[in-house]
């Protein structure tokens, strides 16, 4: 029955880990940011970067509308910092425009104008 004990303790360990990692603090804030993203690869790139930043609970990009939804903890990261971060990755975030050098670091298909614009 040692296996059972192992199993139970592992599950408990994970649950405690889980609850610690999602501890409640200041009320999280949700924002929608208009970006200059282009395609599915931008989604992977942007979400892949943001989801590992401290203070960000999740980020989700709506590709057709270029709208990024971010839920974050304002005591860990501010909205301005968040937008600067997105610009640093290479995308415009509302009024914060990305620098040319950062845009050039993006894969070619993720740069503005890479895909045909309709409107």
């Amino acid at each position, binding site marked *: 029955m040692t*296996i*059972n004990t192992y*199993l139970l303790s592992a599950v408990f360990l994970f649950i405690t880990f889980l609850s610690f990692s999602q501890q409640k603090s200041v009320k999280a804030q949700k924002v929608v940011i208009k970006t200059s993203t282009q*395609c599915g690869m931008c*989604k992977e790139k942007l979400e892949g970067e943001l*989801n590992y930043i401290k203070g960000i609970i999740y980020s989700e990009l709506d590709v057709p509308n270029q709208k990024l939804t971010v839920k974050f903890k304002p005591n860990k990261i501010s909205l301005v910092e968040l937008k600067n971060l997105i610009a640093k990755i290479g995308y415009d975030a509302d009024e914060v425009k990305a620098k040319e050098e950062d845009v050039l670091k993006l894969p070619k*298909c993720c740069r503005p104008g890479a895909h045909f614009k309709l409107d």
Partner: protein
Amino acid sequence: MKYRHLILIFFLCFTCTFSAQVRGLIQGYSKNKMTPLEQVKIKCVNARIGTYTNEDGTFELILPKILPDTLVFSAYGYTSDSIVVNKSDRFVSLSIVLYSDQLLEEVLIELKKQSHSILKLKTLHVEELTSSELKKAACCNISESFETNASVDVNMTDAVSGAKKIQMMGLDGVYTQIQMENIPYLRGLQSAFGLHSIPGTWVESIQITKGTGNVVNGYESMAGLVNLELKKPYEMERFLFNAYGNAYGRSELNINSSHNLGEKWKMSLMAHAAGVFIENDYNDDGFLDMPTGTDFSFFNRWDYRGKKMEAKFGAHLYADNHSGGQFNEATILPLYKVDKTTKNIDLFAKTGFFFKKVNRSLGFVYNYKLHQLQSQFGPRDFSGNEKRGYLNVIYDDCIGSKDHAIRTGASFVYSDITQNLDISLSMTQYVPGAFFEYTFSSARMNFILGSRYDYHNLYGSQFSPRTHMKFILSEYTDLRLTAGKAWRVPNMIIDNISLLANSKTWVYPENIIPEISWNAGFSIVQRFNLFKRKSSITIDYYHTKFENQLIADRDENPDLIVFKNLSNSSYSNAIQAELAISPFKSFDIRFAYKLLDVQAIYNEQFQQQVMLPKHRGFVNFAYTTRNKRWEFDLTPAVFGSARLPEYLDANGEIVAQSTSPSYLRLNGQITYKFKQFDVYLGGENITNYRQANPIIDAQNPFGSTFDATRTWGPIVGANIYLGIRIELEKK
């Protein structure tokens, strides 16, 4: 036929949902060459809906209700184009060519694919498992990859050797053709233990086709085809490190790396080492639950991509050494040992030549294999040697337009298999063959007519016709039909080697003749929206009828295993239903149910194959958190009761036929992603359900009633594992 009503109801439901759909192919023209373009953006201007093309340049798009509308095609590096679609264009096929805007840059996009899906465009019903699905059951080799898949079952063959074998439609794994990138693989002597040689970290995706499949890659796909696409130097990660350990003392190490060698050459190395170092006997029968030992497997491949030709070649080497059975060294009596030693070399190459005309190409596939197997089941020794050579030449072209594609070619198989037990079976086979396949595609209907002719040096000629059809009943509903013939020459001893783990005498047939089967079936895929998210239901039915089958009859006499050639006296019916829904965001549930009616004349009457549950099903729950860093997976599976043959108990009394109880097996896994690496923790058989006394008369293994081949349930109890995966993506 109660199923008939069900089907009728389905048809009624589907036909009322009619609306328009276009599909097509987008190619790019640059440097005087046409190539299919992937990730081309297709947008419907007024309706503001869109899609992207697949890797092969194809797309499907559901048109809006309000027509006409304009479709715009755009891809980086190409001048955008647009066309107007009208009501009359519903269900049409489009062929679009985009011209380079002189920049001549390639469109480089990595695709995020759905992890488990039915490939929509294929005429054949092909289920695909991508690497993200394979990560759901991260232990250990490809036999575990099918844990969350309903079409393929994986079973322990006996209670002592630890060997696992796949089953499709309730038929033994030897009736399923396994191929590695379209090269028939793990055949012959490897059919018993071969799955262990390919770890999950090597696999990019797996395609499962039920039924006979296409004619191009051989004649042996009687129940189905499982194609393994291994990671390719062009697409795989730059570096991967994976370590794994479980509570039963199994540890594994995997390292993959890929290298750029100039513009046209790429190379990759994949290495795998595994071992079981702890002796476990939780059911206290004196026999190891899992054999101890080590496995080494190594794969090296090279890719060349030029303008006019492509080449791939490589080698797969592996060696293993396992030891199971009784392990208590303190006893004076001789121990019943179950040992196995394997050495294998596979060399393969593929070359492809392109022509000026699009869709025309010529491919050569070569494979050479050397295999050595030594195995011991107590007092019985088996040794086998195999040499196999394989050549396949495939020519692709189309007549007039892309709608009429042809595929033709020739193959040659050389196989020299020696099997030594108490008898020695040695067979040298030369099988030249030729095949032809015609594919017609249109907007609402596709069909493939194929046939192959093979000449076997010992058994003469065999003609195998196969046909597949796909009807798009609506843009949400696909109906596929398939029928065909397949055959194989059985390797009697290795195909049944696990039956050596008892004291029964084998009774051999007078001669060995090819096994021939006909398979026919259909599948319906219905996609719909539930909870505002994509859902689907799949129902399929396949019937396999054997013209001749070599069966092992365990019912005739409990002292004997009688091998015989059954003519027109065995069949399999397999019905499967699967429902995939997503009740809330990033939470997917898949329900699967399967009915297997696999019968043959055993002991002079039609009976269900032993140890094969008639009903089984599973539910797979998969949840990913919104930041995609946690992944949870839970799969409870229920196995119905199976028929068990009569046997002799320890006192030599006959115990009558019975049925096994039905049981539940629970597997689960949790993955947490850090930016540079993933950690996963999983449990197998979490409820710790084990077959009680899997070995009959375990105290007396050299006696006349010993039997370790009555396994219907798990031998290994609850098991937990922990693993880490470090991946460096390609720059």
